[in-house]
């Protein structure tokens, strides 16, 4: 299986969330994942994209870039925004931590990403943006 990648840029409209996760899932379909694995990837991507929309670009619309790289059975997904950034990443990553309790946010987005992906790296800088890097290895299956 060849190395492959796709990079998408979309505006941070909530209508694009379903497109983003369906597109990433379809791109990963070549690795022959199980339904579970695809649901996990879609859910993790959804959390990262939602964060970019409601936190990164809170009162505005900006561009979100999603990169999906495949190397063998390894998938790496990067969700990037050029919005508000996170001041304290360690604190933000704590389960239940949210800056939007009034929106009934659960504060569980990062916890979900960490549960469903093998590795999650968050790079962020105030007023510059946020980059969430997630990796997952899809198990090989007997052909």
């Amino acid at each position: 299986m060849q190395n492959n990648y796709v990079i998408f840029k979309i505006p941070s409209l909530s209508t694009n969330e379903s497109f983003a996760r369906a597109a990433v899932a379809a791109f990963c379909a070549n690795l022959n994942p199980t339904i579970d694995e695809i649901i996990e990837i879609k859910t993790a991507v959804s959390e990262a994209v939602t964060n970019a929309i409601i936190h990164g670009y809170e009162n505005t619309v900006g561009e979100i870039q999603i990169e999906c790289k495949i190397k063998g059975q390894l998938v790496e997904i990067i969700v990037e925004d050029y919005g508000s950034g996170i001041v304290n990443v360690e604190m933000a990553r704590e389960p239940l931590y949210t800056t939007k309790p009034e929106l009934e946010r659960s504060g569980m987005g990062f916890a979900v990403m960490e549960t469903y992906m093998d590795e999650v790296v968050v790079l962020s800088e105030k007023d510059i943006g946020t980059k969430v890097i997630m990796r997952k290895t899809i198990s090989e299956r007997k052909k």
Partner: protein
Amino acid sequence: IGEIRRYLRDNNSIRVSRSMKDTAYKALQIRERLTSSGSQEPTIAEIANEIGVDKEEIIFALESIQEPISLFEPIYN
């Protein structure tokens, strides 16, 4: 999250390629049913609504049952 994981594990052995094909065939059946009953051709949104999936999924699912177009074959109708 524990609950979600338990629910998901029930689908464990099924590959996504299989479920995508199923969605595609359902979509085509619905289109067939609605068109032959005299109604206008249904839209992707109507079909997605009936199956209960995102409309983008219907489109990627339909792609999964399409024969790959050979780069060495004339493609026009």
